[in-house]
């Protein structure tokens, strides 16, 4: 192919390409809107949120922390007697 033929091809590609990209993403807009309606119609089941007010939520560190506190407070008291 010579350059002018290539340019013609490239021009067509540009046109077709942009059209398809816009078409594809526009259809996705429609799809998302449908999806949103569907999601509104069938909402996520509301799970009872874990009570986050509880001061010591992490069971992993809490025994440690409590032990540390007990020790520290005792030490502190002892020193400040």
């Amino acid at each position: 192919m010579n350059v002018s033929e290539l340019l013609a091809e490239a021009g067509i590609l540009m046109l077709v390409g942009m059209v398809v990209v816009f078409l594809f993403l526009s259809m996705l807009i429609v799809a998302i809107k449908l999806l949103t309606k569907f999601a509104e119609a069938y909402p996520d089941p509301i799970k009872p949120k874990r009570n986050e007010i509880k001061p010591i939520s992490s069971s992993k560190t809490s025994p440690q922390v409590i032990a540390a506190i007990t020790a520290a407070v005792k030490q502190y008291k002892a020193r400040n007697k």
Partner: protein
Amino acid sequence: MEGLQTLWESTALAHFEFGQIIMMAVGLLLLFLAIAKGFEPLLLLPIGFGAILANIPLAGFNDEGGLLYYIYHVGIETGVFPLLIFMGVGAMTDFSALIANPKMLLLGAAAQFGIFATLFGAILLNLIPGFDFSLQDASAIAIIGGADGPTAIFLASKLAPDLLGAIAVAAYSYMALVPIIQPPIMKALTTVDERKIKMEQLRVVSKKEKMIFPLAVLFLSAMLLPAAAPLVGMFCLGNLMKESGVVDRLSNTAQNELINIVTIFLGLAVGSKLSAEKFLTLETLGILGLGAIAFSIGTAAGVLMAKLMSKFSKQPINPLLGAAGVSAVPMAARVVNKVGLEANPHNFLLMHAMGPNVAGVLGSAVAAGILLALVG
């Protein structure tokens, strides 16, 4: 004496060609950019290192039986590595901002004009003596404008493997340069008042929407553009693994260990394509030039589209958001945020820019699919 001769013959000094020295310098430059300048280090460090290794005479990294030979043939020629990276990226991507404001997809579409304009430009370069890009070459080069590394590597490995090294280097370099390339264009095309526009807050998106979204994207791609299905499919698989919440261990592995392993190999293999005879050519200069143009046109197209949409939209749209449509996630979105803050220190656009930003990823995967279907 024979032994000494053998020994001397077995040093690289006796065999260096000038081009190899230059390419090792290029490799060092990439390492410098990666380490000292922070240019996309996850890719440019292994690419740079791979370039150095590939250009050591007698070391045989690229020869049959050499490490980089195997990695390239197993991972790049097959297209497996970029697809796995895409899966991992999918598992890291949050589409909430896009689902909350789907119109942003149009910005991601507009920015792909950078790709197709560059394709045209690459063919135009053929008018200059010394350039001889085929339509395949031009398409592979154009995808740099998609600002998406794995997509560029995937397409280049299919359409123009000889140009793969230059294309990958250009793609990642310009992605790192997004904070320098984009702001002047964004400011030239917008007024201060436009840049000050505040966006409405985004609604909360339900788990169900986020979960069905990747399936919807896959469905559209499967129907309309199967050539894009490998890229889009793996991306959606990663995203579904993340959003479904039932396979967290797979999702975590996809976005951590697996993508890390593949990134090391992918970088080395791309670097192995940085050989003197393929990189030190006029074509490479053309590719680097076109890459910069591609990013600029994509940015401009995005911004102009945003201005157009603003006219027809009830809610105000800050035209800066258009610049995020080139993808380069999350760099371009950060640039939008920064330029927006310069105009109005209370206007945080980051979350809004994530919409067009991830739309740009989809847009360039679609564009890659079109190029594969029509040119491949």
